[in-house]
């Protein structure tokens, strides 16, 4: 019998406690480091102000485009064709900066670009995808309506045929990037069921107005789209999208990124809390020395580690072509919920400082309230999983 020498176990890192770094390839690590340094240089110094002012600079889109992060997992049409894991890593790092920045990239790449990539004609792909990949053209994705959120099948926006053209009427609400978009992917009912359309900015009858007074995802534009007798030519319709599966396929892509992004926000809050706990002194000792604080930190670390591991596992499955939409629901439900808990716990560790924009924590915490709701609410994902395991739909 041969004996093997036990390897010495290295002391775990305070953030990457499980050593997940070792599960990434050199290329994946380089992508992570690159996006992380971009976020450190360009996002973190400014995002507090963007959040307070309720804006996201248009220029950031071009910068993300130069890095190749817009539509990064699409192939051809000047898109890099990166893996799902690489895309997830980028989402994680962007959201460690701010969910608004990650949302920008998600909506552009996974909703608007993906809709054209998956359902569009060759002509539509060639017209839009290269410009969108460079961040020169911005897209938005109009599915939700004032009266139809979780139940998009009931949408009232309607497109009717008029000779070769289509005439669109309706209202879309809560549309990320709406007013800054050069093109909107609009989902509308037709006599043949739900169809998707590319509506360009400036088309007569198409207008937008921004939603103000949000106290979540403030570094992101959210708008209302109004379509009043908007006439678009036949070739504005996405020819391959038929029925609700059109928008749902796009949402599944974006949700996958959220599984990673949420853990980015959680990591940022955990790091802020850990740092604070080690330096903030009360009763003559760092607050990190109190058992109650250590319990909080340890619990945060557990969920951060598990959620990150889950994201990576689902990513590898996606790259392998084995990821089922219900498994995406599993990831989104778990990781956003746990990220929100981590951020709230981090908030308590920072005391009064935790409620200011001088620290990232309350910003992330508030952002995650939107992330919990969009791309399918946590309740909806619970029902997706419930239906999958029982075979009984509880939606209606």
């Amino acid at each position, binding site marked *: 019998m041969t004996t093997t020498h036990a390897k010495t176990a290295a002391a775990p890192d305070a953030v990457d406690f499980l050593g997940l770094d070792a599960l990434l390839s050199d*290329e994946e690590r*380089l992508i992570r480091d*690159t996006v992380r340094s971009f976020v450190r240089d360009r996002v973190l110094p400014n995002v507090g102000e963007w959040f307070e002012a309720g804006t996201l600079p248009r220029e950031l889109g071009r910068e993300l485009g*130069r*890095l190749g992060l817009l539509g990064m997992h699409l192939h051809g049409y000047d898109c890099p064709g990166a893996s799902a894991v690489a895309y997830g890593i*980028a989402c994680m790092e962007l959201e460690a900066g701010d969910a608004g920045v990650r949302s920008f990239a998600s909506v552009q790449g996974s909703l608007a670009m993906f809709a054209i990539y998956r359902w569009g004609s060759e002509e539509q792909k060639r017209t839009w995808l290269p410009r969108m990949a460079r961040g020169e053209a911005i897209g938005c994705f109009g599915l939700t309506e004032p009266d139809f959120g979780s139940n998009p099948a009931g949408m009232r926006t309607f497109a009717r045929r008029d000779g070769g053209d289509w005439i669109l009427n309706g209202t879309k609400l809560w549309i990320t990037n709406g007013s800054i978009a050069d093109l909107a992917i609009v989902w509308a009912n037709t006599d043949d069921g739900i169809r998707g359309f590319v509506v360009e900015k400036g088309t007569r009858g198409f207008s937008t107005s921004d939603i103000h007074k949000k106290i979540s995802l403030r570094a992101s534009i959210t708008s209302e789209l109004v379509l009043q007798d908007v006439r678009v030519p036949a070739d504005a319709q996405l020819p391959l999208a038929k029925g609700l599966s059109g928008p749902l396929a796009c949402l599944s892509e974006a949700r996958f990124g959220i599984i990673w992004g949420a853990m980015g926000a959680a990591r940022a809050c955990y790091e802020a809390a850990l740092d604070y706990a080690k330096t903030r002194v009360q009763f003559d000792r760092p607050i990190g020395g109190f058992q109650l604080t250590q319990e909080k930190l340890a619990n945060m670390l557990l969920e951060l580690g598990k959620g990150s591991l889950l994201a990576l596992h689902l990513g590898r499955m996606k790259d392998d072509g084995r990821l089922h939409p219900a498994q995406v629901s599993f990831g989104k439900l778990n990781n956003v919920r746990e990220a929100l808990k981590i951020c709230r716990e981090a908030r308590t560790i920072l005391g009064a400082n935790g409620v200011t924009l001088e620290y990232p924590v309350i910003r992330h915490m508030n952002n995650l309230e939107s992330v919990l709701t969009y791309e399918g609410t946590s309740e909806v994902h619970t029902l997706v999983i419930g239906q999958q395991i029982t075979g009984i739909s509880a939606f209606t």
Partner: protein
Amino acid sequence: MKIVVTVKLVPDPNAEKRIDPATKRLVRTGVETVLNPYDEYALEAALQLKERIGGDTTVTVFAMAPESLKETLRKALAMGADDAVLLSDAGLEGSDVWGTSYAMAHALKKVGFDLLIVGGLSDDGSTGATPGALAEYLQTPLVTNARKADVADGKLQIERETDTGYQIVKAPLPTVMTTALTFGEPRYASLKGIMGAKKKTIAAMALADLGLDQSVGAAGAKTELLSFAPPPVRGKGNVVEAADGATGAKAIFDFLKEKKLV
């Protein structure tokens, strides 16, 4: 035109550094290795020149480092360098500035270049002596601290930064140039660059390829590090407590005046 950029692989400047008392060398285990920050500026200069000159201009990065750090060079390739050369050999361990420059110069002669761009300073050793020594061994001119550079008619023309202003200097190729940090912020690697980098080559070189007639490494070192100490801990700064802004400003002004700073 062939541009070569030297890139030292150094411990992450943001990480805490430790020197092993026994070997008097930097402890590298557990610390991430990165491209020496000054060398990222040198690479940025090379890539800008390549974009400007076009044609068949290529950018090669060169490093002398342990073989285990090979993948760190991938970042330079991702930023846009065409290929890389890594000089590694157990016999190079413990080289001082002289040994490093002597070995590097012989290797660089083999690699060949029209323009050699060297960072001004390494983040770990920080002697700043390598560029001068390289130019000496390579028998080329040395132009330093360039904030702008251009090549025309087989000559390099640079704008040098000095304390008193700028100087325009011309030198024939081949030549060695160092860059100032004002040359331009190093670009981020793009995703396409990162994905393309794995297909680029990192050629290996060893001492046997160089045919040196003097020994390098610890055995050939002409200098010896006798002792080292961490920098003294900075004392607490002066805190000016004042009833209002005006008295506070006055106190600060008086302090600066006393130090002859105003």
